[in-house]
């Protein structure tokens, strides 16, 4: 007879050490059926995959890779929370991925999960490597001594994945007797009390909470205090008992493995060590690293520009199509000039994000990324940064957005925050068009010692960015306080070929996160900017429009484009943003800017390169905006109406470049900083400080050159 248990989809948490092939197994099981969400209060992404096996369905929760359940990073806190059902729904089962070559270390985590009492099964992955190393695993022995069902797999070659599916379909998860007795490490009465207060059924959960409580934000202040008082009254020393417990666990594991694992001596050449002789070489190691970074930089900078141009043209075409096919009116304007370009402004970053994360996934999958940390750590440390900060900073030279997203790999909260806060000072590709126009206007096109003076100017702007990034990091190092000590303890995994499926999935999911999370904010700000630039106080805009129509009626058609251009400029002047530009003129006067440049500064908040377009409109240049020469020639002739001096002289031009080098003028970056820090405090602070520094630096520059 059929019983009616069909409504509840069972959940399985997948956990394992880093580099154990966990994501590989997760991806093989779920494919593209993945959802990415958030855990409250932390930056760890929550990835849930969906698996259908015959009649049954499962939600697979991909927990972050960790070596143990000890409270050190957000990752481990999340693993602890999920497995104990604190603030999250407790999964029905756990699947622990073990490394066949490192069973001792993997079982530290494996038996911890086991002791929590959650029904589980082990997946012993990378059996192919173990065989090569002469390690024979007696699966039945292991099952007999631990009581946990296990499957041997080689996930890379798709071996054993069906066995995992079968195990899940049969729900062959067991919760055996714990490996260690928690009462040996904490007073039984204390354990009893904790279990009572928090409703735990398992003593190890209580022990974990005694060790963890202090670190988990999901535990209320009152509970924390209670835990602390109880620990004190029972004389429970958290750190000491934790060490004692771990050592005892290792002793037990070693005992079990003595009979479950047979090691044969195998003579084999170690490819990893030979490769490390090259990749970690004190000279060639850095040369190779530089070459790889150049390749990535080239990709984000140059190759990405091809699909970015398609997106640009595509969205411009879409706007045009909307104008041609929709009835004229406010809604069509909003759609064609506000919403469509707004979405385009989000989508345009996808090629850069996908490329950077594709490269990162390859570097990580091959095991090279850990080597970068090894090589660069010494250079980054004096600035309060970590070896892992290198990749975000370098990618910041193309675009700060993927760089800031990549800072997630840095586990130390302070080093991560510093990296996020200073990355926008690296000279991103959006600044390039601004620099090119302004350098063309202010730096003579002559040679100096055989090198073009304009090229040197551009180089100086890039170096200025790097210099301030490092100085900023140094200042933050002293300002930001943390209890967390910085340390470097990282495994350099063996070199392997990357998994292309994982690479593609990473590219896809990172782009998706950006579009759906940061995209919302970017789209709303672009619409606001569009409204401000298209509308003005009632009456004024209409008056200009009527004046234009009156003028058009009385002129031959050939001259219409010139009139249209000059009125576009007048309209921008009369719009809300034009009024704002004029309002800030007194503030930017000391930097050498007039209200027209003020408007460009405001619209640049959508993205820095918008400067060029705005300047083109406001000086009614018209024609092909993409053609810098037209803009440059026109700006060259631009003079102050009162004094007759050139607007874009050396002082103003240099001051503007310095302003663009330092000011926070990118809403997309702000949206990503918000998303990565989970707080408006940092993006707001970043805007204020960066723009403040920009103002000061631009002021000094203007003084020096005028």
């Amino acid at each position, binding site marked *: 007879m059929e019983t009616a248990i069909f409504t509840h989809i069972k959940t399985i948490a997948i956990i394992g050490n880093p580099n154990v092939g966990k994501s590989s197994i997760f991806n093989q099981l779920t494919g593209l059926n993945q959802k990415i969400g958030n855990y409250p209060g932390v930056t760890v992404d929550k990835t849930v995959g969906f698996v259908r096996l015959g009649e049954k369905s499962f939600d697979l929760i991909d927990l972050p890779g960790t070596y143990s359940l000890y409270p050190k990073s957000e990752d481990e806190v999340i693993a602890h929370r999920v497995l104990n059902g604190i603030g999250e729904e407790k999964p029905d089962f756990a699947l622990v991925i073990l490394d066949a070559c490192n069973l001792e270390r993997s079982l530290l985590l494996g038996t911890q999960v086991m002791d929590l009492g959650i029904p589980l099964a082990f997946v012993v992955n990378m059996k192919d490597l173990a065989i090569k190393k002469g390690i024979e695993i007696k699966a039945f022995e292991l099952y007999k001594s631990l009581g946990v069902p296990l499957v041997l797999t080689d996930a890379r070659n798709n071996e054993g994945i069906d066995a995992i599916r079968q195990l899940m379909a049969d729900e062959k998860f067991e919760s055996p007797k714990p490996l260690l007795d928690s009462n040996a490490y904490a007073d039984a009465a204390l354990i009893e009390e904790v279990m009572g207060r928090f409703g735990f059924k398992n003593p190890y959960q209580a022990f974990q909470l005694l060790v963890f409580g202090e670190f988990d934000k999901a535990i209320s202040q009152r509970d924390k205090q209670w835990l602390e008082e109880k620990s004190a009254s029972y004389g429970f020393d958290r750190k000491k008992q934790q060490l004692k417990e771990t050592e005892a666990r290792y002793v037990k594991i070693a005992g079990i493995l003595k009979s479950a694992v047979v090691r044969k001596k195998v003579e084999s050449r170690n490819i990893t060590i030979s490769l490390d002789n090259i990749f970690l070489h004190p000279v060639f190691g850095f040369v190779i690293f530089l070459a790889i970074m150049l390749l990535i930089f080239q990709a984000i900078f140059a190759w990405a520009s091809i699909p970015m141009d398609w997106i640009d043209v595509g969205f411009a075409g879409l706007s045009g199509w909307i104008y041609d096919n929709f009835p004229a009116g406010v809604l069509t304007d909003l759609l064609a000039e506000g919403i469509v370009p707004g979405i385009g402004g989000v989508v345009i970053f996808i090629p850069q994000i996908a490329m950077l994360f594709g490269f990162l996934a390859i570097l990580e999958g091959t095991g090279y990324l850990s080597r970068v940390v090894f090589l660069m750590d010494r250079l980054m440390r004096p600035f309060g940064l970590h070896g892992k900060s290198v990749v975000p900073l370098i990618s910041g030279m193309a675009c700060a957005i993927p760089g800031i997203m990549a800072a997630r790999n840095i586990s130390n909260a302070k080093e991560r925050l510093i990296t996020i806060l200073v990355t926008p000072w690296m000279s991103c590709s959006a600044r390039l068009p601004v620099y090119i126009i302004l350098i063309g206007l202010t730096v003579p096109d002559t040679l100096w010692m055989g090198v073009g003076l304009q090229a040197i100017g551009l180089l100086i702007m890039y170096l200025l960015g790097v210099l301030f990034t490092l100085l900023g990091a140094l200042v933050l190092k002293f300002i930001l306080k943390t209890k967390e000590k910085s340390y*470097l303890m990282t495994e350099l995994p063996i070199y392997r070929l990357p998994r292309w499926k994982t690479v593609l999935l990473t590219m896809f999911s990172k782009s998706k996160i950006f579009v759906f999370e940061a995209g919302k904010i970017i789209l709303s700000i672009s619409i606001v900017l569009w409204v401000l630039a298209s509308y003005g106080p009632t009456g004024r805009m209409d008056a200009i429009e009527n004046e234009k129509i009156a003028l058009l009626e009385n002129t031959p058609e050939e001259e219409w484009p010139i009139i249209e251009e000059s009125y576009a400029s007048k309209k921008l002047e009369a719009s809300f943003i034009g009024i704002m530009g004029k309002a800030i003129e007194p503030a930017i006067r000391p930097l050498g800017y007039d209200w027209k440049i003020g408007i460009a500064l405001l619209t640049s908040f959508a993205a820095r390169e918008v400067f060029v377009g705005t300047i083109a409109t406001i000086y009614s240049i018209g024609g092909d905006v993409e053609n810098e020469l037209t803009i440059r020639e026109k700006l060259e002739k631009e003079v102050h109406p009162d004094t007759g001096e050139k607007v874009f002289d050396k002082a103003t031009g240099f001051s503007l470049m310095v302003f663009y080098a330092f000011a926070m003028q990118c809403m997309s970056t702000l949206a990503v900083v918000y998303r990565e820090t989970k707080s408006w405090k940092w993006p707001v602070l970043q805007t204020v400080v960066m723009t403040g520094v920009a103002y000061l630096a631009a002021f000094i520059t203007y003084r020096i050159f005028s």
Partner: protein
Amino acid sequence: MTAARLSLQQSAIIESIGESDISINFLELGILPGKEIKLLKKAPFGGPMAFIIDENIIALRQHEALMIKLKS
């Protein structure tokens, strides 16, 4: 002597791990008393050091290597 003083390719047996906030991190990476540790590589200018323990390569800063006490 500590692991920070090992020369390239030299190995020794770990005697104990010094007490600190990160003692537990050593244990969970498999850096345990009684294990053999060998120095594989050193990054230039006093940068991180790469050790081999149980066929795993683990990178530590000098500061962390100083906490690994070795049997003489």
